[in-house]
């Protein structure tokens, strides 16, 4: 039996090299879809920093019999109809795929920015399954979802508790947030679409995103005079500036900005002392994403010394908070993930006002 299983895995592995995928994945590095006719295998790697585990999901259409599957794979019957979105980012993908109606429950409901989903929460058609930091496992069991989509950070204190895994619910881990390239993160729409058998639609949507993104990107390629950019704000004295290999750094680069920490090779944030940041960035041309502050007034209230930074003096501080809801949700982490082209257009408009003069800021705002 064990030999048989081993043989099966070998076949499975070799199958990975056959060109049989139903969705071609061009940018995303952390997932893969392979079509086996009777079912598809979805694999997710790099679910959190330094993770070596690969998670396997067998997507079996409801109309098909259950084929023999490797034990390690979680079985999901497709198309799914009852979805639990444990993070707001999935709402962006679901909206793009016109599948918002499938959401039956969500965590962190205060942070949802999509008005339709918020309404669903208010009316009770979408159940909140998280109270404070705790997940209501019993409610989840009663809801019987056919897909619970979430992600993990590798920190046991915050990740899905073992008791949730014990329920045997169809839990799927995504690793979109680990992608450092905006297009790669948007491409996870193909991953989400696979559960709805909407691969074609996802391919179409993504092709559009990629085309628009590339078009914008080519416009900044020629520019030689790139403004220097500072990013972030400290929490009580410690700045976590995005690393040079991060999503934000990549976006700044593509928008024709000279990110001050681009030389660094960190993917996450780098914790720095304010002095250190000041030494490097006192004379920056632009300052973007200063935490949750939405006005210069609020920024100075937090620390009057922020006024010493050149972009603050020159009125060039922008935050991605234009679409923040009263309870704190931000559309840039929801719809914005599937619209990296619009985010990019915002940044180009900020860094190079004459390149896209017609563009109106979608996610960013100038702090007054």
């Amino acid at each position, binding site marked *: 039996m064990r030999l048989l299983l081993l043989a099966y895995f070998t076949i499975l592995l070799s199958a990975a090299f056959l060109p049989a995928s139903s969705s071609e994945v061009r940018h995303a590095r952390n997932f893969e879809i392979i079509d086996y006719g009777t079912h598809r295998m979805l694999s997710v790697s790099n679910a959190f920093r330094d993770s070596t585990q690969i998670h396997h999901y067998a997507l079996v259409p409801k109309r098909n019999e259950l084929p023999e599957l490797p034990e390690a794979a979680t079985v999901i019957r497709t198309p799914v109809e009852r979805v639990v979105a444990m993070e707001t980012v999935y709402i962006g993908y679901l909206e793009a795929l016109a599948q918002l109606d499938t959401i039956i429950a969500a965590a962190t409901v205060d942070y949802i920015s999509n008005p339709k989903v918020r309404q669903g929460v208010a009316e009770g058609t979408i159940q909140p399954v998280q109270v404070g930091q705790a997940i209501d496992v019993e409610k989840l069991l009663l809801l019987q979802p056919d897909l619970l989509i979430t992600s993990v950070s590798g920190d046991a204190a915050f990740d899905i508790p073992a008791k949730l895994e014990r329920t045997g619910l169809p839990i799927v881990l995504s690793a979109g947030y680990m992608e450092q390239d905006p297009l790669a993160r948007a491409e996870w729409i193909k991953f989400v679409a696979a559960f709805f058998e909407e691969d074609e639609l996802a391919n179409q949507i993504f092709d559009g995103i990629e085309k628009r993104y590339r078009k914008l990107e080519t416009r900044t390629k020629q520019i030689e005079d790139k403004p220097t950019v500072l990013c972030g704000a400290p*929490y009580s004295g410690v700045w976590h500036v995005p690393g040079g290999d991060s999503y934000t750094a990549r976006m700044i680069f593509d928008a024709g900005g000279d990110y001050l920490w681009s030389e660094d090779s960190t993917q996450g944030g780098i914790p720095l002392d304010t002095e250190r940041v000041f030494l490097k960035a006192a004379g920056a041309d632009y300052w973007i994403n200063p935490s949750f502050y939405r006005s210069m007034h609020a920024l100075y209230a937090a620390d009057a010394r922020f006024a010493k930074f050149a972009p603050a003096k020159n009125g060039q501080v922008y935050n991605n908070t234009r679409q923040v809801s009263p309870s704190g949700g931000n559309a840039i982490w929801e719809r914005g993930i599937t619209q990296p082209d619009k985010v990019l257009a915002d940044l180009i408009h900020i860094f190079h006002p004459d390149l896209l003069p017609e563009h109106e800021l979608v996610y960013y705002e100038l702090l007054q």
Partner: protein
Amino acid sequence: MHSQTATRQRTTLVFLLAGLGIVLLALLSTCMGSVRLPVDAVIKTLTGSDAVEPVMRQIIIDFRLPRILTALLAGAALGTAGLLMQTVFRNPLADPFVLGVNSGASLGVAVVLLALAPAGISLTAGLGAKGQLLVILASSAGAAATLFVVLILSRRVDIMSVLIIGLMISYAIGAIVSILMFFSMAERLQSFINWSFGDYGNVSWSHLRFFAPAILGGLVLSSLFIKPLDALLLGEQYAESVGTRTKQARFLVLLAASLLAGAVTGFCGPIGFLGIAAPHLSRYLCRTSSHRILIPSSILIGALLSLASDFVARGPGLDVVLPLNAITALVGAPVIIAALVKQRNLKRLFG
């Protein structure tokens, strides 16, 4: 007669050395930090010369100097607050932390940063440059409220039980804070957690305008009670027999202590251990229980320990700042242990 002269000489020596240490460390802290600055740039800036790169000049004037001043004031305040509490409660273990002042302050801050958020954030934003004051006010109010609850209860029980009551109140408040934390989202939580690590670097010149008078006021108020404090140390009955109005004195002394500890906690976060370490070290070094000596020496030694902790926390050469609270505990705990082991019979000093 001979021993009195010895004590005086000893005290002078301690004061001189502590003062010298403070000056040296302050200079060292100005030059070294996460960014190392050339000594001549520092000297030129301090002497008001313009021939310094503006960014360096700003780092020194806007970041390092207020931080050093804050460290000095906070250390002096915590040392004195600790001394006052140890005397009033006649207990060597009393300090702002044990008596629930820190947890009361953290409850105030948690209410502002966690429960009122995001309403709290817009509230502070509306207050403009004085926005941070809401956090500070909440912290001081929380500190004072806790201390006075302990004080009121302390009238009904013996003084030893007061410590246990303080600890119990700390636990209960800690529980409320955990519940608030449980219901808050990551960003707010991060602000609160970072606040709880403690940091002198957040106090800018505009904050010092409020912080410095509060601390100096608290220190002046404390120094008015040298005689009543000496008398209190010998017991309430004795104090009353020599004409001290104990209730009033106790009230005012604790008011000063909560002003000092509350202001520091609000501006810099809960800084542990300095409050207990500085007075013990003072007693050990000066070998006296007279507050005429203990108050100034607690101020000096508190400031010195505080500056040293901040210097270590900045980890010269590191990009990051280590949690100040961890460093004060690492510096403070061995100091207390050493002082206790050497002193052996502490009880004598507490009557």
